[in-house]
């Protein structure tokens, strides 16, 4: 569903060049939930922007639903970390969710049906007529998620979506994303720097090295599909995976393509 092939990104200015991505290569199967984890400064945002078609890689390519990405691809929805800035403050909640559907030129009836369904999914049926600034941060991020699922994407990309909300809201939103993924079977790639979050959410975790970035390791998360904040997190297997992932990230902080290939 999502294929990233030997991607390299070098930022060049007149007299300097900075290699953010060296050779990033991975695929995400249809219906899979993958978390992308890396130490801070591991080129996660660069990688995401390249996948979303907002930036051109220097080498390598991206395919979404078997189509090469040159600009922002069809069938891909992006949820940003900065929910407050990603929503349109001059539109009501329902209008925010509806706007991309308008741009898809869907008939009004279908738009309204999708908006109602998406808002119900995230539990915001009663806030349809509010403005984004009237909602809490967690609720605003729910709106952004509703907007993404109303779009019915093949691939849902999430860029550290819960990095700026409080711990309780975060746990709720994690369960929400998990539920949406299971109900709607949307291929999901979730970028985070939080190890617990990655293990709790994903079916598979991809660990990135520090810059210049390569895929350092892939880990299968063999936890039961039904996850729960209390019982899942207290499973011995959860602790083991968490431990492994932590060690891997520690290694990633000092490792990059330079040290690993050397």
């Amino acid at each position, binding site marked *: 569903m999502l294929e990233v092939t030997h991607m390299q990104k070098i930022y060049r200015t007149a007299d300097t060049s900075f290699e953010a991505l060296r050779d990033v290569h991975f695929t995400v199967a249809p219906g899979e939930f993958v978390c992308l984890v890396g130490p801070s400064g591991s080129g996660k945002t660069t990688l995401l922007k390249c996948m979303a078609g907002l930036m051109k890689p220097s080498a390598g390519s991206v395919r979404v639903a078997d189509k090469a990405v040159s600009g922002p691809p069809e069938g891909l929805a992006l949820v940003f970390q900065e929910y407050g800035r*990603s929503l349109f403050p001059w539109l009501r909640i329902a209008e925010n969710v509806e706007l991309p559907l308008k741009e898809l030129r869907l008939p009004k009836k279908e738009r309204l049906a999708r908006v109602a369904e998406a808002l119900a999914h995230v539990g915001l049926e009663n806030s349809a007529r509010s403005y984004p600034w009237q909602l809490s941060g967690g609720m605003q991020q729910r709106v952004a998620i509703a907007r993404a699922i109303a779009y019915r994407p093949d691939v849902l990309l999430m860029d550290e979506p819960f990095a700026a909300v409080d711990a309780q809201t975060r746990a709720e939103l994690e369960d929400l994303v998990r539920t949406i993924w299971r109900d709607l079977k949307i291929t999901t790639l979730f970028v985070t720097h939080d190890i617990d979050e990655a293990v709790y959410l994903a079916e598979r975790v991809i660990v990135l090295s520090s810059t210049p970035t390569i895929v350092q390791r892939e880990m299968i998360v063999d936890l039961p599909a039904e996850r729960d904040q209390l019982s899942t997190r207290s499973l011995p297997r959860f602790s083991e995976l968490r431990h492994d992932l932590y060690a891997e990230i520690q290694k990633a902080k000092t490792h990059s393509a330079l040290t690993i290939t050397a």
Partner: protein
Amino acid sequence: MSTRLDVVPAVGVEASAFTPVPRRRFRARGRVTNVLLGCAGLLSVALVAQFLAPLGIVREQDLPPTTVIMAALAGLLGESTMWMAVYDTIYVWAIGLAVASVAGVVVGILLGSIEPLRRATSSTVEFLRPIPSVALVPLVVLVFGPRYESALVLVIYAAFWQVLVQTVYGVADVDPVVADTARSYRFSRWGVMRYVIWPTALPFVMTGIRLAATVALVLTVTAQLIIGTPGLGQSIAQAESGGANARMYALVLITGLLGLAVNIVVRLVEKRVLAWHMSFRKDASE
């Protein structure tokens, strides 16, 4: 998340190019005190003016007592020629402001969203903008003669830059995250214009129009005074040359009231159009 939106529109007549001045925030309690203080100030000026001539500080023909001016004002309010002059003034002002606003917004959006175009024109804009509209009086008289088109050209020239500069600045203020959101959802060019650029620029555009409205009125009256096109400015010139000084002062008061009315109307429009925006700032500031 509030930092981008709460430093939006500018206040004051002369905003320098591409740099908005932060808007003053009004509080309900302060407003009542402001009105009281304002009235007290007006009253004191009226009171001082009343006694300047009787006390021999100025000659009565230079500044008649307030009561005499008020009597002349009352007389004027019954004259149909005065209302005709008010109508002519508002007519030129409104058409001039409308043309300047539409042109300023259209050109501003073009310059603001096409970077090479903006760079190519910025020195030209910076050269033309500071030319006082009044300096064009000989030119427009040469082309149109003492007709209302002359006044209109001056008004449009002066008001246009106010709207243009604010619009360019507003277009540049689009949040990169909002822009990326629109791009990733594959908004059309028109969709980006309609749903992203236009609402972002709107507070700036409204500020530009508010500044332009004041400037347009100044230029309307100036043109009528200097060129002699019909309107309040012409009436003032006639009263002055006829030695009817109390009448002249009364006419000046009327132009002042007109200016006040213009400001109030534009502010009301601004408040309505930017309801979401005002509330956003209120929410963010508390």
